[in-house]
């Protein structure tokens, strides 16, 4: 089976989908959507996804968006016994809790700090950084209790959160005041097959683009 993935390479949520598909052995047919050129607002794309965002998948006519819903779906459908998304209701609920934490707290706080710097060339805002660090502190607290964010095994929550946090490499941001996060990130990156090709390369490209926009 091949699933179409509409994506943009450096986008965090898109990278999360690619990493999960790779781990469970689902082939993706990548379809690039140039967001800078507004391709997501073309009628063909809007017909699929009126919310005009990537990632969006087309699995034999079933269209789905929202990265975290996509990765849950991929495991439910193609790797139902995988420990990436445990079946035990309590373990599963903890993974879900962290996916919502990623979306609503961590990635949100990160975006508010990150986007004005990369897209508007603004200076880092200390208040935004402090909110971001509060969110990182919660994550650090989790990792003091268990070796992965939702327990003792790699789950969808680790992948979603690594996809989010790795975005900060574009700014050379270091997580040095969060030793658990730093060690956990290094470990997870090692564990994901083809991590570099799916993440480092597009992020390097994005970083070069950000640099090229900066007034010299």
């Amino acid at each position, binding site marked *: 089976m091949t699933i179409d993935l509409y994506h943009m390479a450096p986008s965090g949520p898109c990278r999360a989908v690619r990493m999960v598909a790779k781990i469970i052995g689902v082939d993706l047919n990548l379809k690039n959507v140039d967001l800078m050129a507004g391709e997501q607002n073309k009628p063909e794309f809007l017909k699929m996804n009126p919310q005009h965002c990537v990632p969006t998948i087309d699995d034999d006519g079933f269209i789905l968006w*929202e990265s975290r*819903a996509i990765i*849950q779906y991929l495991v*439910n459908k193609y790797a139902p016994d995988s420990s990436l998304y445990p079946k035990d209701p309590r373990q599963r609920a903890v993974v879900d809790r962290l996916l919502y934490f990623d979306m609503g707290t961590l990635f949100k706080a990160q975006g508010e700090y990150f986007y004005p710097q990369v897209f508007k060339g603004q200076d880092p805002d200390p208040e935004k950084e402090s909110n971001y660090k509060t969110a990182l502190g919660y994550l650090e607290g989790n990792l003091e209790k268990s070796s992965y964010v939702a327990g003792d095994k790699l789950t969808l929550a680790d992948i979603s959160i690594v996809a989010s946090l790795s975005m900060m490499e574009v700014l050379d941001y270091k997580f040095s005041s969060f030793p658990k996060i730093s060690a956990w990130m290094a470990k997870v990156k090692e564990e994901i097959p083809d991590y570099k090709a799916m993440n480092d390369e597009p992020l390097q490209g994005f970083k070069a683009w950000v640099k090229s926009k900066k007034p010299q």
Partner: protein
Amino acid sequence: MNISPIDFYYFPLSAPCRAVDMVAGHLDIPLKKKFVNTWQGEQLKSEFLKLNPTHTVPTINDSGFVLWESRAIITYLADLYGKDDVFYPSNRRKRAVVDRMLYFDMGSLYRAIIDFQIPIMFRGEEPDAGKERVLLEKLAFLEQFLTDYPYVAGENLTVADLSILASVTFLEAIDFTLSSFPKIEAWLQRLRKELPYYQERNQDAIEEGKRMLSERK
């Protein structure tokens, strides 16, 4: 099934709390309600932080299993105590659409509602035109989904309806009108009538919240 009562830490006006309350009503799960006055910082007390270090309500304690994040709570409750295969369907595609709508609620719709509403409600600010535009855009997405289907995730009522219902009705606290969204209006009217627990678990909670708001001013 005999379900032992679940501790439910809540604040009445809070939309995510009302969502959990309605889902418990839908599934006939007994709740032991524990009021946490977040306007007075009760969520920062050490006993509560021990349960949930991120100090948010809703939080539940189900015989020692402590969980927060409303949408994780409601899918957990539906998975464990569901009475049918409709409310949180096991069919993978159907479930994925429900999950997609829960993320839409959290990241787009409810986010836009709070961004717009909080400054008006707590700081008496004038409505911000930019934030209102974002909110109207998200409501338009919902209007579109409800044009295609009678419920937010398809032909049947699911947990996503109750999460979004709790979010959208938060707007009642600032008397925001949805009259330019006929499908949303119709869906709201329908749910108000259809859900036997609506009055007690959503409307009364909002009224109580409004009362508290007026006393705060």
